[in-house]
């Protein structure tokens, strides 16, 4: 191998690349100077930590922003899908901010405010709106946290009522289950405690079986996990494991037991098996908040917590499939609980942890 020959080639290549780079770089710097102040549009970027397709909550978020844009003609929307490599989120969020084009960046997911911290520091003008998230108050951010204790409580209570009941899928064991894709703070701090509390409210003897799948996609493993829970006497399972939910539903269907669904209304997925759904009205929340930001009435540095009372957490009780699956006696007790949360006679506070 001729060493000299190779290194010369390399040097040549390197020099050429450097030259091209410099030219383009200088060109780029001088060429581009679009300053913000001139235009009168209100530009909103939606940062999707993942991809939109297949995620009802992300769909709702995007729909909410788009609705705001439909209301006000000078609102523009840019949706950026950041993909599943969490390592790239920060850089991509930074890129969005570095554009200095967007008045507002909207995103969802508990991790995002933390990812955004260094971005906010680098771009002190940038404003962020995060839903389903919370952080110690930051003056460039507004966070909206759903009271997921309530969410968990409602399905837990329903599960408790079902396992106790004489519904055809219910057995004599007083055991209900919950399967999570992975553990994250909202799960351990809000959803699971809420779920347990709800179950105990239905009957203090009820045992809750809590399992973690380890990922958000392995439907086969989820099915195995659900099967083993069912074999141990569980007859109602709350499933929160994204793409792997289907495995839980399949297992439940095969054994004739019930599934509770989280964050969106999905009775039609498995009529007769899905016995209850709690939903978030994220679209409305995002819509309203974007409009407030637009009109300048949003107070930055706020962490807002909303729940059933504010109408952002709902128990999907009007669905015909629900009414068909669950006996009227249970339906009416669910109505009572929802009412209690609404009128404030039942208060389920979010743990202290989330407030700072």
């Amino acid at each position, binding site marked *: 191998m001729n060493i000299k020959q*190779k290194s010369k080639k390399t040097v040549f290549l390197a020099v050429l690349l450097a030259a091209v780079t410099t030219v383009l770089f200088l060109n780029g710097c001088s060429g581009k100077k679009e300053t913000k102040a001139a235009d009168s549009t209100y530009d909103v970027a939606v940062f999707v930590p993942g991809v939109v397709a297949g995620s009802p909550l992300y769909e709702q978020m995007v729909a909410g922003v788009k609705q705001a844009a439909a209301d006000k003609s000078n609102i523009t929307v840019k949706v950026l899908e950041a993909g599943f490599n969490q390592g790239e989120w920060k850089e*991509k969020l930074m890129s969005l901010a*570095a554009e200095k084009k967007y008045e507002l960046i909207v995103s969802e997911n508990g991790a995002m405010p933390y*990812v955004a911290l260094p971005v906010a520091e*680098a*771009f002190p003008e940038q404003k962020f709106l995060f839903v389903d998230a919370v952080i110690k108050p930051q003056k460039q951010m507004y966070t909206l946290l759903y009271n997921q204790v309530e969410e968990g409580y409602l399905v837990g209570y329903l599960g408790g009522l079902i396992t106790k009941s004489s519904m055809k899928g219910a057995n004599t064991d007083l055991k209900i289950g919950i399967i999570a894709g992975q553990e994250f*703070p909202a799960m351990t701090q809000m959803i699971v405690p809420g779920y347990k509390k709800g179950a105990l409210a239905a009957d203090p003897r009820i045992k809750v079986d809590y399992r973690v799948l380890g990922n958000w996609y392995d439907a086969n493993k989820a099915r195995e996990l659900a099967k083993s829970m069912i074999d141990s006497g569980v007859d109602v399972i709350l499933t929160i494991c994204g793409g792997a939910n289907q495995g839980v539903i399949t297992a439940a269907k095969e054994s004739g037991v019930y599934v509770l669904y989280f964050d969106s209304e999905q009775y039609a997925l498995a009529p007769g098996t899905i016995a209850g759904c709690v939903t978030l009205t994220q679209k409305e929340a995002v819509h309203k908040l974007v409009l407030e930001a637009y009109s300048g009435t949003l107070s930055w540095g706020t962490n807002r917590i909303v729940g059933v009372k504010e109408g952002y957490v709902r128990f999907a009780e009007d669905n015909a499939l629900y009414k068909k699956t669950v006996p009227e006696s249970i339906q009416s007790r669910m109505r009572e609980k929802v009412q209690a949360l609404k009128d404030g006679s039942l208060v389920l506070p979010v743990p202290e942890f989330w407030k700072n």
Partner: protein
Amino acid sequence: MNRREKENIIVSFWGVLLVLGASLLFAAVLIFLLSSEPLPAVKYFFTGPFLSRYFFGNMLDAAVPLIFTGLGISLAFKASLFNLGGEGQIYMGALVTTVVCLALPEFNGLAGGLTALAAGSLAAGLLAALSGYLKVKWNVDSMISSFLLSSAVVYGVNFFITGYFKDPSSSLLSTPFIDSRYFLPHLMNPSTLSTSIFFALGGAVIIYFLLYRTRWGYEMTMCGLNPEFARYGGVNVSSYVTMPFFLSGLMHGLGGGFAVLGTYHMSIKGFTSGMGWGGIAVALIAKNNPLGVIPAALFFAYLNAGSKAAMLHTDVTFEVAAVVEAFVFFFITSEVIFSFIRRKRRSLL
């Protein structure tokens, strides 16, 4: 150097350039087909990385791990070894570096950082060396064993990041942040570029020197070209199986370690994914020349930065960008691999 040699260089140089140019053209065509605002999309794809210090810095920073992995692959290639375990090795190096940083909170920044880097690269090196060892000991195909070991390690590292070392207070699937004393100084704020790029460039020079100017590199090259001849010449051939693998893993580990200290400051699930494969493509373009690895890595970083820019400014979606990158990757690797196979076949017949 005589005239013919010069002609040769120019021919092969244009050959490389042609492939790169064709792949860029191909990317442009793809964007044209897949985007509804193709003109700006193509424009941003090509010029995006140069539009601001920020993008430019990010591009340079993205080249850093690719330089390390590209060097690792080239090194093993010189000994005719194909290290297919880069993904696992870089991930491993990153995690170990992070964990050591987290375990040494009292340490002063520099010594601690170096300790962490050393540990990370050593861990990755040993992981790779295992493939070499298996080959020497039991004649296990090192290409397959490195790939399988690395796949298993990726699962293992995932387990630790999302389990044992996970930051319980974060919704991100990640370890906690390392102490800021371990951060490498940033160069072009707010971009992610850090002084790690100097280490990468230095690494390339060192590996170049090692391969072409030392007895060690000479012997390794000879083992790669014709092991029977090397053995006959008195070279201890079996040591040039484990050692190149070890060094290759070491470079991958450094890539991961510098990604932590320079860019990410923690380990996030899957954050190094793709860097190992990228290294193979980089080494292929660079024809395994350690200095050639630098421009080759920059080219890949440019591609990546270009698709990010197109995504940011136009309707190009995540999938489109991924498809464009994947296509260019295959375009380049298949070209190089085919010529590699052709060469092999010719030497056989």
